[in-house]
């Protein structure tokens, strides 16, 4: 009871005040059959040192990317998190999950967000980036609402290679404003441009293309942009910013809005979150952009300062007519990304991309050489690819997990047509030994 301020003496005083003899007397109105007639079946309290030992034991039963060779991807990736990130974000000045609520008094926080926005805008090749949104999926859903607000059209065309989980979130968001989702088939792993031309038309608010897409394949973003713009629609590109040290910025390929999951930029896998929703757009659309936006300005003494800007778009001022219901950002994860990019620098980010793609191509070659195993799509890929297996991918993955290899993501529950497929991701963290061991273990598992 040491953390509870109400002592036996307090309780007696309170009971006396209301004229009741005992706490039990307050419960007499509850029917006997609805009451638990025995104490809760809880184990006895542990001493702190015993509790820590107990929790460590439970935590030890988790699989994590340090104890396993992780080839899992599908939206979150085992990129290396440099040590300065943890060192910096744990500082008391920074350690809050929240966006600043008395913003101008938090110049340091605003500055880190401003730098984050600047880096994201540069990476994506866009004019302006916001302070971040919850994750890649919610960023995309907000982008579809934004496209609808910009041109008033009510259909969203989604390329087949979009992460199926993102599609579900878009579906949820689309329900309220009554947006109609239309799918563009991608039978060969990338958008079928002829099919896209038939779907994208005068009613299309935006065409959404993910590149590299969920299957790992690189899309022809420039062709998609041309196609969308010819129909008067916007192009929304879903992009993984950690790849953009090597891959062309979507903004230079014609994207109007760029969104994506920023987890790869120094945010730990963390069993699924919290992650980082990247959101960037062309300047002409800035007043329709959801979320917070930090701007640089000068104060009365002409000294540089930072302020939340264009807040009149936001819910706390514009109420029901706000651009979105998001008045916050994932400030701590955005800070991790900022420190990540500052630590790696331009060359470092290029190196991460080069190593990831080189190792992914080596792994694809080794794995596809296993008898019965092949690459599902004959398309260029970056750090992730889809393997077709001769045996159940679930069983193969379970077998390899016993050898401390997380083989990848079986696609059956996400895409029925690919129930014989395994999605494999390779980051710069994987070693040649790990890849070779994976190939050997796979060969045994499917033999």
């Amino acid at each position: 009871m040491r953390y509870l301020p109400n002592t036996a003496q307090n309780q007696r005083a309170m009971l006396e005040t209301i004229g009741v003899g005992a706490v039990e007397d307050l419960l007499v109105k509850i029917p006997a059959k609805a009451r638990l007639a025995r104490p809760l079946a809880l184990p006895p309290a542990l001493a702190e040192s015993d509790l820590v030992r107990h929790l460590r034991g439970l935590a030890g039963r988790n699989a994590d990317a340090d104890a396993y060779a992780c080839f899992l991807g599908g939206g979150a990736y085992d990129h290396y998190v440099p040590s300065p990130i943890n060192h910096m974000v744990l500082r008391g000045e920074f350690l809050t999950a929240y966006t600043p609520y008395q913003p101008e008094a938090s110049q340091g926080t605003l500055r880190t967000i401003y730098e984050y926005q600047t880096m994201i805008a540069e990476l994506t090749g866009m004019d302006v980036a916001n302070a971040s949104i919850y994750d890649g999926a919610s960023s995309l859903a907000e982008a579809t609402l934004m496209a609808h607000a910009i041109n008033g059209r009510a259909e969203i065309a989604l390329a087949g290679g979009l992460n199926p989980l993102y599609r579900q979130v878009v579906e949820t968001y689309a329900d309220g404003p009554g947006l109609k989702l239309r799918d563009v088939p991608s039978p060969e792993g990338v958008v079928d441009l002829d099919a896209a031309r038939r779907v994208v038309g005068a009613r299309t608010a935006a065409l959404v293309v993910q590149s590299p897409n969920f299957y790992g394949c690189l899309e022809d973003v420039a062709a998609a942009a041309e196609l969308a713009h010819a129909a008067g629609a916007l192009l929304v590109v879903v992009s993984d910013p950690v790849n953009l040290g090597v891959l062309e910025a979507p903004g230079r390929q014609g994207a109007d809005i760029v969104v994506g999951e920023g987890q790869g930029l120094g945010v730990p896998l963390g069993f699924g979150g919290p992650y980082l929703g990247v959101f960037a757009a062309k300047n002409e659309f800035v007043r329709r952009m959801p979320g917070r936006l930090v701007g640089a300005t000068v104060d009365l003494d002409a000294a540089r300062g930072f302020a939340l800007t264009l807040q009149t778009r936001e819910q706390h001022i514009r109420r029901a007519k706000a651009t979105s219901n998001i008045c916050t950002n994932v400030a701590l994860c955005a800070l991790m990304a900022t420190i990540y990019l500052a630590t790696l620098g331009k060359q470092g980010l290029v190196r991460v991309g080069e190593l990831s793609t080189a190792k992914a191509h080596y792994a694809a070659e080794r794995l596809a050489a296993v008898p019965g195993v092949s690459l599902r799509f004959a398309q260029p890929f970056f750090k992730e690819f889809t393997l077709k297996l001769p045996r159940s991918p679930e069983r193969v993955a379970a077998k390899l997990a016993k050898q401390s290899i997380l083989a990848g993501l079986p696609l059956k529950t996400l895409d029925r047509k690919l129930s014989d497929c395994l999605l494999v991701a390779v980051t710069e963290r994987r070693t040649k030994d790990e890849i070779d061991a994976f190939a050997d273990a796979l060969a045994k598992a499917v033999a």
Partner: protein
Amino acid sequence: MANVPTDLKYTREHEWAKQEGNRVRVGITAFAQEQLGDVVFVELPKVGARVGAHQTFGVVESVKAVSDLFAPVSGEVAEINAELAQKPETVNQEPYGRGWMIVVTPVDAKEWDQLLTATQYEQFIAEGGH
């Protein structure tokens, strides 16, 4: 007391309307721009768009608020003030002149008669304006 020209008609949402032949020019009143403070952005419809009386046709954004713009009469947008995209402060400087917003070709002449006169509008803002 805010400037309320007598040759114009008004809405309770603080737009003014000016008859020009068979068309109606629309802007916001001096009272409205004073209340808003420095205007930083004006969002207008496209030429050819249809607007409805007392329906929103655009948005005016100041440093402290964003407000909807309401059309005094129904009709088709014949002209918009493109200059406001670059110089939104014109709305503060000349609300009844170069700060105009749209020109509408009305479809229902009766709507004109339902707008407030200058005297009625002056009384309306004297009572607080909302």
